[in-house]
């Protein structure tokens, strides 16, 4: 059961003159929590955007569950394959309720067309409503279900974004700085939460994070990027000892 879930080879992304990601290899195996770290502007989010089809990579290949993802595959198709993500800047459907946010994620797997949906011919709507309620219950968000997403406090917005990603039934979840803006207490709760959902939903996790406590605590392996290039990879213990990483990142950005 340790097959490769995500396998990135020679990934390169250039924006005009800027090479945001440079010849990156990265592999995530089933059930792992892998962290992608590096200073601001190192190209971490760009990696996510290439994997999820937001950007078309300049070069390189991405395979998911052993199958290469064809160039030009749109983000919605990649989500359908089983890759979910959250965003560095929270992107909820702000005028919609907590419940509706989760329901949107269920839409792609509903067996329906516009007529059967409008006239409620099949029981699909009821089915996904029950599923969404169950998910909200598991996540402890049920009491907030009719709250507008934009009314939630910051931490709960982050939580809802993850819950919404889980609602797409992913195999792999990409978390972009989920602890951003959280205090140490919230951060350690988040660490526990991520390990918990990995077990519960049989997830594989790739996480971008600046909070080093969290990264060192939960990661099985770590990749370190600097100026788009991979400068180190290994277990948390190995990374903490690595002089290049300390020089480029850990030494200066420990409290970032």
């Amino acid at each position, binding site marked *: 059961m340790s097959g490769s879930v995500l396998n990135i080879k020679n990934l390169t992304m250039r924006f005009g003159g800027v090479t945001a990601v440079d010849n990156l290899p990265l592999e995530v195996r089933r059930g792992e929590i892998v962290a992608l770290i590096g200073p601001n502007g190192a190209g971490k989010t760009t990696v996510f955007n290439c994997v999820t089809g937001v950007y078309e990579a300049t070069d390189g290949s991405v395979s998911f569950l052993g199958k290469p993802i064809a160039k030009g595959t*749109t*983000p919605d198709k990649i989500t359908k394959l089983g890759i*979910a993500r959250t965003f560095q800047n929270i992107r909820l*459907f*702000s005028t919609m309720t907590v419940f509706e946010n989760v*329901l949107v994620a*269920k*839409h792609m797997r509903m067996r329906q067309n516009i007529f059967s949906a409008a*006239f409620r011919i099949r029981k699909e709507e009821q089915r996904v409503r029950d599923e969404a309620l169950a998910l909200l219950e598991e996540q402890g968000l049920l009491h907030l279900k009719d709250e507008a997403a934009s009314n939630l406090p910051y931490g709960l917005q982050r939580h809802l974004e993850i819950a919404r990603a889980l609602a*797409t039934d992913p195999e792999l979840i990409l978390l972009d700085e989920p602890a951003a803006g959280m205090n140490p207490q919230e951060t350690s709760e988040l660490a526990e939460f991520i390990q918990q959902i990995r077990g519960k939903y049989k997830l594989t996790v790739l996480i971008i994070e600046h909070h080093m406590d969290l990264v060192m605590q939960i990661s099985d392996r770590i990749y370190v990027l600097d100026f788009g290039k991979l400068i180190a990879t290994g277990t948390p213990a190995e990374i903490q000892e690595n002089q290049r990483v300390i020089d480029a990142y850990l030494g200066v950005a420990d409290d970032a």
Partner: protein
Amino acid sequence: MTKTQKFISVLLLVALYAVIFVLEQTLAPSEMLFTVLKKGAIYALVAVSMNLLNGFTGLFSLGQAGFMLIGAYVYGIFTIPIDARASVYQYFDGGVIQFTVPLVVALIMAGTAAALIAALIGLPVLRLKSDYLAIATLGFAEIMRAILQWDKLGPVTNGSNLLRKFPTFNDFNIVTGGKTIYMSTLVPFIIVGVCIFVIVLVINSSYGRVFRAIRDDERAAEAMGVSLFAHKELSFVISSFFAGVGGALLAMYQMTVQASAFKAAMTYEILLIVVIGGLGSVTGSCIGSFLFIAASEWWLRGLDSGSFLGISAPMLFRAGFRKVVFAVIIMAIVLFYRKGLMGANEFSIQGIANFFKKLFTPRKRSAK
């Protein structure tokens, strides 16, 4: 909505239709009220269809008049009675189409034609950047207006001449032995009611939810597995279908159709109604329509013709002054009710109850 609220809403709607029926039997058919009700209903349908796209899906389109034009022509062309065609198409030997279809079929054809053309426009425009939709639809509407007046198509469209003699709202009146049962307002109300009901069903379905998700955040919607193109196209096609039906109804109301009348100004009127009523509010669009039509066709008429509210001032109240006042009112609404009369809310029993509750609850004094 709870069961009781639903029940009361249905009851109110039935009452509304009953009142209209009674009014029609008692008042003179020439009453201004009926003009407002008929035209208001048509505009309500078109405004709601535009709101589906602009308010609920967040796509800015300016093609409403163009799709209405298509609907009006398809309706006219396929319902003019065969023996009337020789006189209508007098410059084109009676035209090439020598059959008619039943009214309901013609309405559906009107919507379908508009929907098909929307699908074609959407194919290139919605696939890449939907930012160009407004320009593309505006351009399309202008081109459509020219094409339908083109002489070469005369055998089908009657060129720049009027289409007429097709069934109108007055044909819904039932004459039985000297007595007339007036239905010329009620039937359009029923047709519009059914159409808006279907749009509401769409909005309340999983698809409607996805439309709103796209409006709120495209990137996030896409990350939820939503195909942006497919859903934008769907919203555009549905919206255009009902604009087409609305155009057919407008043809019935006006009794004649001429392409040159479907100007961009018509789209702006509808856009105005949508904004006044509130982007994302179906009931807002409906209320906005009737208010708009009542104001422009009725209440403010006097401003153009010498005396207003009993004040006679021919020097001030002359042709064009109505438009000035109208513009001021609209500016005031946009300034003071930035989100329109209804915002994104719906008119509901619960809403009214809450409103009065707030009104009659004494304000809590702040402790000093």
